[in-house]
């Protein structure tokens, strides 16, 4: 007697880890935490043209306890650094960090001999998964960063790489 339905089309077998990684990669919830200029580009990425919700990352959460990924968008100085660190500690595992913009990567344009305020790179506070250069990075760059993080989670890239026009 032959099967009525070909179950291999409906049921997929996978490791639980892979399934979890796939679901996490599809719904990365960022923490609403704008520091400076990059935060405006982060808002623009959530806006209608760039629409980050196409990649499941539009659910900005004001509470760190509900967020998966922290987008450090802007300059971290010595006064805010303990607060940023606390926010990172408050996030539940598994958690990821995207350093958006030159300031979060290295202090950016605000580093000069004798500077007294800026933390030169947010990776001095906690580990960073994805770095997005730019001052500020374009919303496309932020989306690319989210996709790079997805690739880190699932091990493969689900969206085609856009090649720059020749």
């Amino acid at each position, binding site marked *: 007697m032959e099967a009525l339905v070909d179950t291999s089309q409906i049921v997929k077998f996978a490791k639980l880890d892979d399934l979890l990684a796939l679901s996490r990669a599809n719904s990365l919830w960022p923490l*609403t*935490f*704008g*520091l*400076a*200029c990059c*935060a*405006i*580009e982060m*808002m*623009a990425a959530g*806006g*209608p*043209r760039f629409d980050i919700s196409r990649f499941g990352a539009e659910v900005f959460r*004001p509470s*760190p306890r509900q967020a998966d990924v922290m987008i450090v968008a*802007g*300059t971290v*100085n010595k*006064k*805010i650094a303990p*607060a940023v660190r606390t*926010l990172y500690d408050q996030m539940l595992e598994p958690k990821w960090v995207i350093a958006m913009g030159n300031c979060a990567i290295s202090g950016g*344009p*605000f580093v*000069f001999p*004798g*500077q*007294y*305020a*800026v933390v030169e790179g947010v990776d001095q506070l906690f580990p960073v998964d994805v770095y997005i250069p730019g*001052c*500020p990075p*374009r919303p496309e760059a932020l989306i690319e960063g989210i996709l790079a993080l997805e690739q880190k989670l699932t091990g493969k890239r689900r969206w085609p790489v856009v090649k720059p026009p020749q």
Partner: protein
Amino acid sequence: MIASNDIPSRTNPQETFVLNLGPQHPATHGVLRIKMTMNGEYVIRAEPVIGYIHRMHEKMGENRTWAQFLPNTGRIDYLSALHYNHAFVGAVERAAQIEVPRRAEYIRVITSELNRISSHLVWWSAFLLDLGGLTPLLYAFDDREKILDLLEGVTGSRLTYCYFRFGGLCNDIDDEFIQGTRTFIAQMRPRLKMYRELVTDNIILRKRLEGIGPISAEMCRKYGATGPVIRGSGVAYDVRKSEPYSVYPEFAFEIPVFPESDSMARYLVRMEEMAQSLRIIEQALGKLPPGPVMGKVPRVLKLPPGDYCYAVEAARGRFLVRTVSDHKEFPYRVKLRTPSFSNLSLYEEACKGMMLPDALALLGSLDLVIPDIDR
């Protein structure tokens, strides 16, 4: 709003509590922190704590040449970067007595006013987000992207522009920009009408803002508040009219003033300003003079010793650059008088005795940019 004598007068520490707002809080638009002493839902005292995004702009001014400081000006108030460019460039031009071609001044006005509209659109969406409306953000950012496309075409960047140079501009505008701006003006006017029907005339918004957060003209003067805050208190103070700079005297435009002094008045000032900016852009495009966009500038800029000021009307109020030169390649001092700092300083007095949600509506109506406060 309750009358001040109805506020529960219990101020003893056993019956009040301290509510910490920020530095990470969606309603503070960045990293402002406000320590609020509360009695139930009423604010007894609100103490802003600033400095969480201090970026040493003034110190950096003393460490680099005049031209090297120019990109910094686009990052103080990143929402109205071109006005800040204009003030610094203007101060240096005034000091070195550099002649700016008329075409360059016209283009400065056009791009600055486009920047003002994009800045007000961000304020509008963020303010309504604070009040609980998500949809306006989607409309405002749609319009804003059109402005950013235009400005990106001539300046090369989307947000932190560094377009003006000492003596002119780095790029001339092309026909594409002029056509695009005309199209944008034609599209934006019906959109402003739609915003009015969709949001401004909405009874929920009216109830939420009318009579909330009164700031008297006297209080504005006391704290040095400028921009839409003082114009929402019935004082027609605008740097473009009171200390005319660039080619603003050649255009006909009005300064919107609303005497109600509440959050709604400040809201209406900004909405009306967008329409006035469109008017200025239209006139400037109509009589755009031909010619070069860059004047004669010495290769190594050394300003004569002295103290030079230049004020502009930025999107948030009066921005003034004061530079002191001692005839070296580096400035001796760069002092930045930023509007958000003064506009925030009245907050402690203005929100005394208000309900917490009203205090947040007042905070939103001040349109603060935190790096502009901390510099």
